[in-house]
């Protein structure tokens, strides 16, 4: 098949540096050659392609925007965004894996960890030798993580952690869990090796979304970790929320990639599919759908690029990321639904990518702050009034 043709209606390519384009093209090539041929099988089986973790590490996509001294690439945030775009062009599950490893596991260690924690864990996570997960959400506390019930108490200089986490990406496959728990003074983050007694991570099955990704519960039953397992510089909910801002930033780009994949597929398909003796692409209704999606993707690309440049300048705040995540994921989900229809019955099979993206994006719409919670975050920034309490 022809290589993927990226929509770049307004020549946004001009706004990227040569290095940013090289990063994008490198990841794009890997996704096309190595990931797309196997994704449908994994999606159907409900498995993450763990056999590709070594290649992902070699490519350098784990924590690529963290410094070189930890074995990372030291890229800027726009390049990181483009990596997420290309990974999610493959599958939201692939981008999720990388977001969790980089933004939700490596980032908190980098931002809130001690020097020892950083030098011990970051090179192992960058090389893929250690896989991590991020445990914040609980069965009864999703949008309101501040209500969490998981507790950490001191015992002879150690910490003992008890509680249950839900919907944890990579949970079953990980060696290290970043677990957020309520300690005496505040919510704290803990680095918990998953082979500790009392720790288990049963997989959550029967999902119809993000199937090529592992999702699991974390059960912590009196798990003992040493004193230095706590992240010293994270105190209160700002700790986990700071990580989520990093990951959501990547999602804002990732969603663009998923939508681009769907549009590319719809354009090709509609040009080849003959209905009523002419190509489907020659009718006005499909053209309107594709024109709308192309416009929406272009706007989302510009928003992602703008927040990326702000992040590199150091002026990006969480409400800006809320706007980009909310807009771009919503855009991608609507695009996938609209374009799935253009593929007709073929659109409901795994032979085509769009239906899979459509199912995946339902998770992306909900996780990392639901669409509505981001609405309220923007509302609060506009009015100064928090409407979510």
């Amino acid at each position: 098949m022809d290589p993927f043709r990226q929509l770049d209606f307004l020549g946004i390519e001009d706004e990227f540096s040569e290095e940013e384009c090289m990063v994008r093209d490198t990841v794009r090539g890997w996704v096309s050659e190595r990931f797309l041929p196997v994704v449908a099988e994994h999606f159907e089986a409900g498995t993450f392609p763990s056999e590709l973790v070594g290649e992902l590490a070699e490519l350098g996509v784990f924590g690529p925007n963290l410094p070189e001294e930890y074995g990372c690439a030291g890229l800027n945030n726009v390049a990181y965004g483009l990596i997420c775009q290309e990974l999610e062009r493959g599958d939201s599950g692939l981008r999720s894996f990388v977001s969790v490893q980089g933004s939700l596991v490596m980032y908190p260690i980098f931002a809130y960890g001690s020097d020892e924690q950083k030098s011990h864990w970051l090179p192992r996570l960058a090389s893929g030798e250690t896989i991590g997960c991020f445990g914040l959400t609980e069965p009864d506390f999703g949008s309101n993580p501040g209500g969490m019930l998981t507790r950490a108490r001191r015992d002879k200089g150690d910490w003992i952690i008890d509680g249950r986490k839900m919907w944890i990406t990579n949970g079953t496959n990980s060696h290290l869990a970043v677990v957020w728990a309520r300690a005496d003074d505040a919510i704290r983050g803990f680095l918990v090796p998953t082979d500790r007694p009392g720790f288990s991570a049963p997989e959550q099955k029967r999902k119809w979304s993000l199937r090529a990704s592992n999702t699991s519960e974390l059960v912590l039953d009196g798990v003992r970790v040493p004193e230095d397992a706590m992240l010293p510089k994270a105190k209160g909910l700002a700790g986990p929320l700071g990580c989520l801002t990093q990951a959501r930033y990547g999602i804002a780009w990732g969603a663009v990639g998923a939508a681009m994949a769907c549009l590319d597929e719809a354009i090709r398909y509609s040009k080849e599919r003959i209905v009523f003796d002419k190509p489907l692409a020659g009718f006005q209704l499909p053209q309107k759908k594709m024109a709308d999606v192309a416009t929406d993707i272009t706007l989302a690309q510009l928003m992602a690029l703008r927040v990326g440049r702000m992040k590199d300048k150091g002026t990006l705040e969480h409400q800006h990321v809320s706007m980009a995540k909310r807009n771009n994921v919503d855009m991608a989900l609507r695009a996938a639904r609209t374009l799935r229809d253009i593929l007709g019955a073929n659109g409901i099979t795994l032979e085509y990518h769009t239906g899979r993206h459509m199912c995946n994006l339902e998770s992306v719409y909900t996780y990392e702050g639901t669409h509505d919670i981001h609405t309220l975050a923007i509302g609060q920034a506009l009015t100064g009034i928090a409407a979510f309490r």
Partner: protein
Amino acid sequence: MKIIACIKRVPTTDLEPKIVDGKSLDPTGVAFETSFYDQIAVEAALQVKEQHGGEVTVLTIGPKEAQKELRDALAKGADHAVLLKDDRWMSRDAHSTARTLQQKIQELGADLVLTGRVATDRDNASVGVMLATLLDFACVSDVVELEIDGRGGKARREADSGLESYSFSLPAVITCQKDLNEPRRAGLKGIMAAKKKPLDESDCPESSNQAEVCQLDTPPPRPQGRIVGEGAAAVEALIDALHNEAKVL
């Protein structure tokens, strides 16, 4: 060991070419890449360096934008890049290209020069062998296996009649064929490292073509296919068509 890989920036092979002024390619909207066989030459250069030590230089004649292809080779592990700037690189003939490369290679010094078997844009398959002649280096073309030892090497090349094995002395020019290796991918760390590696740019010395393209035509469109029938019922019609229409049976 001083190893030089010569590469060319060419339009991507999925290009649907448009012709302007009857003899040149319309460059608007054209995407470029390192010619397929030159990527194999770069990989071969890196492998020789990994086995025997030394330094890999990538050399190209091309527009300023060819920095992209050079950076890609640096990201994969080349040490040094040289760009001889020429906006009309695509209309150079093989002789003027080889002559210019020869002068630069003599200035840089080389034990081993690697080129692609052919550039995928012009399909001349001439520059590598001409370059060897001009440099007075040993030459093996269309190489599918390569082994270097201290002073020379062994190579196998694909000939019409089968595989030919050669031994050669250094310095040498090797032109690389498809099965020689599988080019590596640049990693993100390599891309960052490439930023700090030297990329020398200079204007390409004037050199006139001995042969000029005076007209360029795209190949005639392929005739439409025809479905002769479905399932087993189609077999007879197909055999008939192959016999009487296509006359291949």
